[in-house]
């Protein structure tokens, strides 16, 4: 099974990368750009056929490693 995980910064947490991207876009002539936030997008293959179990395992992976839950949120998506 394939899974996709989005890791994003929590609201209120400063995002230096997002800010820098926003500034760079303004400089490059995209004044219409407002707030920019950058997150991570992780695609994983997992050997697991049961959706519920897969989800539970992925949740554990996120909490243990993929996201820093102090400052980040995560969202898990299972793909066929």
């Amino acid at each position: 099974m394939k899974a996709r995980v989005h890791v994003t910064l929590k609201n209120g947490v400063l995002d230096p990368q997002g800010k820098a991207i926003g500034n760079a876009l303004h400089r490059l002539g995209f004044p219409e750009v407002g707030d920019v936030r950058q997150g991570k997008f992780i695609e994983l293959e997992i050997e697991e056929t049961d959706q519920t179990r897969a989800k539970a395992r992925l949740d554990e992976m996120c909490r243990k490693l993929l996201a820093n839950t102090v400052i980040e949120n995560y969202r898990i998506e299972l793909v066929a």
Partner: protein
Amino acid sequence: MKAAVVVFPGTNREHDIANAIALTSGAKPAMVWHGDSELPKVDLIVIPGGFSYGDYLRCGAMAAHSPVMREVKTRAEKGVPVLAVCNGFQVAAEMGIVPGTLMRNAHLQFVCGDVHLKVETSQSLFTNRYQQGQIIRVPVAHAEGNYFVDNDTLKRMEDRGQIALRYCGADGDLAAGNPNGSLRSIAGVFNETKSVLGMMPHPENAIEPRFGGTDGKALFESLVAAIA
């Protein structure tokens, strides 16, 4: 003073700090490989700088889960002093043994060079050989040293005197000299009991006059004085 330096794949400043410790304490620290579950009985645990696991995913995240770090955490909770420098600070923050987190530098670039620091307190294992308010010059070398913590925690930390070091200008001006955008110019923080110090700058690279000056030396001398 018996010290142990924890080494991960990708750690690269372990020799620098081991040297500084040997030079000031007269005893060579033990180098402990991250995969070892045994951590020798020591007076000081050091988590050194580098790029543990390439700094991939989030700096410090993978190292924080190394087998040996469980034991480091246990010891730290029991009060064994921990000095966590640069990547070590990032690891310690990931483990939660110091508050806050280290984000990408605001300018997004790696930054290497001397900075000035204001020593916020001399009342600690790590800073007793400095004067409170002393301005020292030591180098930094990092891409993710932008300290961040939520407001409530920050307030509590400031009230309890958990801020160890702040970036400043050569004259102590706190509005200047911040190399990475850190919140309130924070360069180093203690845990609540001040037994753990996490800091981005490299005192270990400021211990000899010819090689970046000697302002970092007192940090190690403080430890020797407090521990040995």
